[in-house]
């Protein structure tokens, strides 16, 4: 078992650590598939407004890749379909049916051939759980990764501990990892924070421990240490709860939209872990989790990279309750003082902000002028937005490097296509 100690990429966590035990199940009234998790996805609808849908029923497919299905996490009624610019998906909202009965086929699914596994993952809505590296997007149905990274690390101290979440679900997780090995000819790397292995190391299953700074939990760090993608090739990353869901799907034939999330943040009454559903409505999950007269901001994700949202993000396992930021007038005053210059002063702290082996200041300069060729040479293919949140906080320029990186990656993706 490999062990990587990460020295760079430290950022102090300002959210309190939750009690690491899965507490109550939060039943929500609404769930949504949110377009922000799949940018530029244009849906072909398979159901229409006010239709009754079952849990795991296909809601829509990707217009570019009709094989990729997105399914409903719960049984209920389609109440809202919102579009963004250019008919991209904005949100697909389902009101949960309170008298939901579990009518599922309950036979194991054939997992003998790679083709049948791919078809099952595509048809049953598990495909969008994968993301490619480079680019951090849903892989195309035909693509073959050279390695798959299971992110089973605890991202921050305020995130759920995978060992606690997977308690009792280890057989499903094991099964999920076995299924993943069929999708690649390379290795499936299971990256975790604690020593105790989550699954058996096998011929093509590599259990690796990443410890150290906050960046030890990020998939970019794992990819950088184990299979740097700058030299070509595509790897996939997937979260541990999705791997357990894949295992569950192949063992029982049932789609599982269970998600254990931590509720943390300065305004959280009692930071803890709760079990809820993919895409759960945050106001339902958080009812009673903050003081009655408080008006916190709901962030899907951690305090550093989270975004203000109404529904739980597809790839998030944390909900942060933060204080509402300063009123616009005060913010404007503060910015006027700070935005005298948008220059980048190369402080030495920037050198320690990224765990992947990248020269930060030249890289940030390439991003700020949008030079995608230079950014590629400097290793931008290894990164996605979440990795650069620390740089945006530290840098004097006040630029959002995550957004700049996405522009550059979009450029490079177009060139590659």
């Amino acid at each position, binding site marked *: 078992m490999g062990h990587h100690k990460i020295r760079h990429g430290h950022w102090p966590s300002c959210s309190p650590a939750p009690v690491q035990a899965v507490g109550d199940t939060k039943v929500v009234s609404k769930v949504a598939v949110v377009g922000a998790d799949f940018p530029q996805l244009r849906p072909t609808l398979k159901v229409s407004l006010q239709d009754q849908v079952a849990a795991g029923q296909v809601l829509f497919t990707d217009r570019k890749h009709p094989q990729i299905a997105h399914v409903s996490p719960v049984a209920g009624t389609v109440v809202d379909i919102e579009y963004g610019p250019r008919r991209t998906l904005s949100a697909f909202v389902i009101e949960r049916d309170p008298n939901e009965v579990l009518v599922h086929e309950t036979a194991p699914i054939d997992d003998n051939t790679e083709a049948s596994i791919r078809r099952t993952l595509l048809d049953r809505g598990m495909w969008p759980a994968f993301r490619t590296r480079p680019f951090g997007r849903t892989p195309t149905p035909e693509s073959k990764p050279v390695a798959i990274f299971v992110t089973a690390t605890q991202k921050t101290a305020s995130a759920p501990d995978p060992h606690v979440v997977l308690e009792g679900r280890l057989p499903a997780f094991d099964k999920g990892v076995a299924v993943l090995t069929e999708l690649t000819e390379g290795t499936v790397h299971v990256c975790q924070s604690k020593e105790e292995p989550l699954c058996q190391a096998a011929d093509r299953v590599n259990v690796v421990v990443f410890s150290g700074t906050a960046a030890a939990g990020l998939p970019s760090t794992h990819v950088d240490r184990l299979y740097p993608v*700058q030299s070509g090739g595509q790897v996939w990353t997937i979260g541990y709860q999705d791997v357990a869901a894949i295992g569950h799907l192949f063992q029982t034939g049932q789609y599982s939209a269970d998600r254990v999330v931590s509720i943390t943040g300065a305004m959280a009454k009692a930071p803890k872990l709760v079990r809820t559903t993919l895409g759960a409505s945050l106001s339902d999950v958080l009812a009673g989790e903050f003081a009655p007269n408080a008006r916190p901001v709901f962030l899907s994700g951690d305090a550093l990279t989270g975004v203000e949202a109404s529904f739980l993000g597809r790839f998030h396992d944390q909900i942060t309750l933060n204080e509402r930021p300063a009123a616009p007038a005060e913010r404007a005053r503060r910015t006027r003082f700070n935005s005298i*210059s948008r*220059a980048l002063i190369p402080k*030495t*702290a920037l050198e320690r902000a990224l765990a992947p082996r990248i020269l930060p200041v030249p890289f940030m300069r390439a991003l700020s002028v949008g030079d995608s060729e230079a950014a590629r040479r400097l290793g931008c293919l290894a990164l996605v937005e979440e990795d650069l949140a620390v740089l945006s*906080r530290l840098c*004097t320029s006040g630029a959002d490097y995550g957004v700049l990186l996405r522009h550059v990656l979009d450029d490079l993706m177009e060139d590659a296509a």
Partner: protein
Amino acid sequence: MRSAVYLTSSVSGVTVAQVMALVPTSIVAALVDPVRYPALLVAALLTAVFWDAIFAYLRKRNAGFHGITTALIVTVLVPADLALWQLVLTLSLGVILGELIFGGRGFGFLGPAVVAVSLLVFSFPEVQLANGSQALALATLPGALLLFFFGLVSWRVILGTFVGVFALAALSGESVDVVAITTILAFSLIFLICDPTAAAVTNPGRWLHGLLAGGLIVLFSGGSDMTTEAIVFAALTASIFAPLIDHLIILLHARRWRNAHA
């Protein structure tokens, strides 16, 4: 610690930190010549702030006050008997050519103070720069620690410079007096050579930048007695080469991907 991060996450915060670091050295310079120094300081501050304001007005931006640090550095380095018009002229050129034509602090690749003092020495060969004294070196120390805490000087550049100086001095068979060298070098090293916007910006590049600056100091001094002029020219030359050094480091760094999976 978090407020420290917050302070230096804006350009004005960086300027505030640098001004704080320069206060003790300015006090030492004022004590050396309490009559002339205030006049020089006022002239330098007015000049630097004037050009900052003019460029901000022409570019329709909010004025920065970064010129203050340039003025504070330059007034410590110039001799006390310098004519005011010479100071105003060279400082104007230094601020404009070193910084403002590039778009201001952080957009150029030279330190405005280095450019100003170099121009002074080029244009007026009779001017002798003030040599570093023990008091000045001691007064540099708290500022150096402060800037180090904020990550605005790199220990790699500092160490590289010392290694460069000692290595070349030892090679040329000169006797090496560590205390004397440190005394003369301290102020210029921290505020000219280590200027974060003029130094190299990659970690290996910072080593090379320091080594180059240190070697050039000995070379330009032409003997065992280091002069402030030599240090200033070495700082200027090293910062001109810093982007090239960084570029070479970037090329070397990019080679690693080529045979990553061989």
